[in-house]
C-alpha cells in the first residue's frame, strides 16, 4: 500500500514536472523543436522523389538530390538541388539561398536568376522542396492542445500552432500547424494566403529513425482548391555530408558534380 502511495505521489510529481516543462515551452519553442525533427542541424544531403497525382492518377514525377546547409547569419537553410529524373531535366541545378534563386542548365551552360514566383516543380512550391526552418521565418502566436488525424489516419494529441510570417522571405502569410505533444513531431499543416484562402494542406508522415531520431520520410501536399490534386514528396538517402559555403553561389553551379 505504501509502495502504491509512493508510486502515485511520484507519478503526480512527475506529471506536475512534465506539465511545468510543457507549459514552459512557448509556441515558438515548440515550432523550433519541430524544425529539428524535420531538419538535421548540420549539413546534409538527401534524395527527394516527387510524384503528382490528379484525380487519383499519377501525372508527373521527378527525382531531386538536395544538399542543404544552414546559413550561420540567418539560420535559414541554403540548398543546392540537382535533378536526377526525368531524363530531360537530368543534371539541371537550382540554387536556393534565401531569395537568391538561380537555375542552371548544363546543356546551354546558362545560369538564369529566378524570382520566388517562378515555380519549378508543379504544385510543390520552392519553399516546400527545399529545407526550411519555419521558426526563422514565422512567429508562432498561439498553441492550443487538440486531437487530430495524422497522415496515417491515427489520432494524435497535438499542439495546434498558429503562426504568422515574420520575415519577407516567408513563402506563406499564415500557417496552422499540428505538432504532436511530447515528441514535437510535425503532423500536419495548413497554409493560407493573406486573404485567408487555404492554399494547401501538408501531412508529415511515415516516421522512421534517420540520423539518430525519428523523422518524417514523406510529405503529402493537398491543394487547397482542388483536393484531388496531390503531391507526395518522399525522402531517402539522408546522409550527413559537408556542403562547403563556396559551393552555394552561382559561379559554382557549372562545376557542381557530386560523387
Amino acid at each position: 500500500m505504501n509502495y502504491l502511495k509512493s508510486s502515485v505521489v511520484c507519478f503526480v510529481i512527475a506529471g506536475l514536472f512534465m506539465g511545468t516543462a510543457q507549459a514552459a515551452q512557448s509556441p515558438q519553442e515548440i515550432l523550433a523543436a519541430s524544425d529539428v525533427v524535420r531538419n538535421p542541424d548540420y549539413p546534409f544531403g538527401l534524395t527527394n522523389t516527387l510524384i503528382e497525382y490528379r484525380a487519383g492518377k499519377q501525372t508527373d514525377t521527378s527525382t531531386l538530390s538536395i544538399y542543404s546547409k544552414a546559413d550561420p547569419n540567418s539560420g535559414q537553410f541554403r540548398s543546392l538541388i540537382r535533378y536526377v529524373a526525368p531524363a530531360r531535366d537530368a543534371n539541371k541545378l537550382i540554387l536556393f539561398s534565401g531569395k537568391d534563386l538561380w537555375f542552371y542548365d548544363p546543356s546551354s551552360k546558362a545560369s538564369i536568376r529566378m524570382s520566388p514566383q517562378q515555380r519549378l516543380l508543379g504544385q510543390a512550391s520552392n519553399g516546400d522542396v527545399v529545407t526550411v526552418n519555419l521558426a526563422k521565418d514565422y512567429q508562432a502566436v498561439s498553441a492550443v492542445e487538440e486531437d487530430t488525424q495524422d497522415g496515417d489516419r491515427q489520432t494524435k494529441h497535438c499542439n495546434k500552432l498558429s503562426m504568422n510570417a515574420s520575415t519577407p522571405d516567408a513563402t506563406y502569410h499564415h500557417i496552422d500547424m499540428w505538432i504532436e505533444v511530447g515528441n514535437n513531431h510535425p503532423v500536419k499543416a495548413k497554409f493560407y494566403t493573406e486573404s485567408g484562402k487555404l492554399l494547401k494542406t501538408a501531412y508529415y508522415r511515415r516516421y522512421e529513425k534517420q540520423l539518430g531520431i525519428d523523422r518524417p520520410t514523406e510529405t503529402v501536399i493537398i491543394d487547397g482548391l482542388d483536393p484531388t490534386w496531390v503531391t507526395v514528396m518522399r525522402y531517402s538517402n539522408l546522409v550527413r555530408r559537408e556542403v562547403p559555403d563556396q559551393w552555394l553561389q552561382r559561379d559554382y553551379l557549372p562545376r557542381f558534380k557530386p560523387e
Partner: protein
Amino acid sequence: MRRKPSVFKPGICALMGLLAMNVYARQDPDLDALKVADQMPATVEQPSNWRLFIEAGAGVNRARLGGASQQFQRLSLDLQYDNSFAPGWRAVLSDRLDVSWPPQATGLSRDINTIKEAYLSWQVQTDQILDLGRINARNGVALGYNPTDYFRTSALRSVVSVDPASLKENRQGSIMLRGQKLWNGGSLTALYSPKLADERNYSSFSPDVAATNGQDRWLLTLSQQVMDGITPQLLLYKAEKQPVQIGLNLTALLNDSTVVFAEWSGGRSQSSFTQAMRQIGITYPDDSAFRNHSATGLTYTTSNRISLTAELEYNGGGLDQEKWNNLGQASLQSYGIYRRFLQGVQETPAKRTVFVYASRQDALINHLDLAAMSRYDMADSSRMSWMEARYHLKHTEFALQWQRNSGKSLSNYGAAPQMQSWQLLARYYF
C-alpha cells in the same frame, strides 16, 4: 410503450455514429488524398552519367521570293557524358550530330557533327578547380543577347532553331585551360584559350579547331557579393590584336515576381562593318572607338506561372539606322559581306533591338509547355517571331514550332530566304 425506445436506443446511436463518421469521411477530402498518396511506389531513381536523345524533325519553309514551299527533314543525335571517375576528377563529353535534308545552307554538308565539350576537370581542393580541354565557356545574364558571352564567336556549326536556348546549347566550345578559385560569396576564374589552327574545316566530322581556337584569347571573371541578393560579375576579355574589353553582369530581385538584369560590355573596337571588310582583305579605314554593347531587361512571372521577359539590346558596333537602311542600295556586295560576318559573331546589323519572350509550363493541359518570342529591329522595323508548343512525357517530347520573318527585302529579318516555316519535332530520351 416506454421500453421500445430503450431497445433501439443503442442501435440508433450506433447508426447515427456511423452516419456521422460517413459524413465526416465525405466531408474530409484529405482522407481520399491520403489514400491516393499511399499508392506511391517505393522505387528511387538513381543518377546517371549519361544523357542521350534522338530527335527527328520535319517541316516546311515558305520562300520569300516566289512564295514556293520547300519541305525539309532532320535527324539529330545528342550525347552528354559527365562522370566523376575518381575523387576530385571529372570527365565531360558532349557531342551532337545533325543530319539535314536538304543541307542547312548551300555549300554545307548534310551531316554536321559538333564536339561541344570534351574536357577533364580536377578539383584540387573544395575551393580550387582546374579544367583542360574543349569547354563551352558561357557568360551573361540576359536572355536574348549576351554581349559578355565572348566565346560565342564562330561557335555555331549547326543551327536547328532560333530559340536562344537552342543557340546556346548547340555550339562548339573552345580548347582552353581554366582555373577557378572560390570563396564564400565570390569567385575568380581565369582562362586561356590559345590559337591552335588557321583554316576553318567545314567537313562533317571535323573538330573545326580554327573556329573557336583561331586566335589567342584570355578571360578573367570576378564575382563578389556586395550586399544581400546582389552579386555583380566583372569581366576582362582580351583577344589577339584587339584591345581589352570590360564586361559587367548584374541581377536583382525587384519583388517576389520580378527579376531585373543588366549586361554590359565596352572597350575600344572597330565597328562590325569595318571588321567584316578587313576580315576578307578589303582595305577600310580604322574606325576604332570606345563602343558599348548592352542588354537590359526584366522577367516578370504572373501568379498563373506565365513568365514574360522584355529586353532592350544595344550593339554599339552596329551601323547607324540611316547607314544600315541604305547599305543594300549602295552596295549589295558589301551588304552580303557584312551579313555573313554578323552570322559568325552573332551580332545584329544595326544598333537597337527589342526582344520579348514569354513562356508557360503546363499551359492549357498538363505537360504542355508554350513559348513565344519576338525580335524587333528598331532601325528597319523588321521582325522575327517564333512560337513553340512542346508536350512532354517521361521519355518522349513532341514539339510544334512556327517562325515568321517580316520586313522590307533587305532589312534585318526581311532578308531571310524563308518568310515562314513550320517544324514538327519528336525527341526520345534513352
